[in-house]
């Protein structure tokens, strides 16, 4: 899911060819999982269908000749996605990371992204804490497990917030 928003977001800085998109994506987010070329095209096809991107064809033909550009609807969609907190869950980092980097790249408020997410995490943690304190030992153990994971996320959020300046310098050369 986040791949499509990421690609969409990358287009905000200007229209690109499919191959460029893959390269940019791999550079920014694809540390350990490079994107398959085919995945770019299938995603673009879906976005095109939903009207979030449009194609500017250059002279000549073949897939390489297609340049994608983001539509206004696409921009709105990206903005909405970035500012919407993720459902707190384990192994969230990749999505959050994508959001933060995209926010930095597109000049949005990355701190806001982190704070919104923190609030969401805390909301869930409050609920879990309450359940834990009201429930029995089994509840307590289960909740604690979740709480520790959420806490790890939150710590990561804190750390990222503290390093936003450095990260910004890196993604916006």
């Amino acid at each position, binding site marked *: 899911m986040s791949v499509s928003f990421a690609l969409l977001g990358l287009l905000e800085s200007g229209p690109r060819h499919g191959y460029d998109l893959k390269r940019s994506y791999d550079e920014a987010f694809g540390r350990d999982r490079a994107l398959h070329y085919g995945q770019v095209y299938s995603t673009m096809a879906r976005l095109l269908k939903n009207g979030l991107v449009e194609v500017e064809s250059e002279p000549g033909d073949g897939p390489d000749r297609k340049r994608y550009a983001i539509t206004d609807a696409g921009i709105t969609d990206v903005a909405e996605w970035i500012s919407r907190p993720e459902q707190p869950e384990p192994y969230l980092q990749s999505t959050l990371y994508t959001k933060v980097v995209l926010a930095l790249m597109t000049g949005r408020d990355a*701190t806001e992204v982190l*704070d919104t997410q*923190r*609030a969401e*995490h*805390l909301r869930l*943690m*409050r609920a*879990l*804490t309450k359940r834990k*304190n009201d429930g029995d030992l089994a509840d307590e153990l289960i909740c604690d497990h979740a*709480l*520790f994971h*959420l*806490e790890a996320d*939150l*710590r990561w959020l*804190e750390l990222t*917030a*503290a390093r936003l300046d450095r990260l910004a310098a890196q993604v916006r050369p």
Partner: protein
Amino acid sequence: MADQPLLTADDVHLSFGETRALQGASLHVYGGEVLALMGPSGSGKSTLLHCLAGILTPESGSIRYGDRDMATMSDSDRSTLRRGEFGFVFQFGQLVPELTCQENVALPLRLAGAGRREAHRQAASWLDRLEVPDVAAKRPGQVSGGQGQRVAVARALVTRPKVIFADEPTGALDSLNGELVMKLFIAAAKETGAAVVLVTHEPRVAAYSDREAVVRDGRVREQEPAR
């Protein structure tokens, strides 16, 4: 939750020499709520807490408690306010080492003029409430960190204050003890209806709050009160 905030900081500035600890911090504390103050270390959380409690006076901006402006209050008035309406829990080393735990808890009552007997009776019941009745006769040096913090919480609650300021109350404890202290603390605070301003950088401690505010570079990003 009450509509009117109990305690309000408005555009507060404060520097320590070169260090600008607070640069336009604003915050609202509502009656009975538990507000977590989060943020990286050195961001100004403690400084803000001290301003809210009337221990520090801001250089500019205002701190209002109810309809009173702390800036215009004399030092002794603010002391009286702290004695009567506020309670404090700090990270560690806050108990008077030569007093027994029970005497430590009774101290705020005694300072406010209560008789020895009555103060000690209430202190004992608070130690009970925080599940450390057996440390009553011991000195702080003879009890564990977690027990000591529970004694500190009892001491903060004993005067039934309107606001309790807690600065990293579990900072020196392991997570199990920290949780226990928080559980007892917040339950007791809720019971007495005290608002709690809780400075912490631990998410699991912050999870005991109703609402959080993030301090960053001397400014506050405050979450709207729920509903």
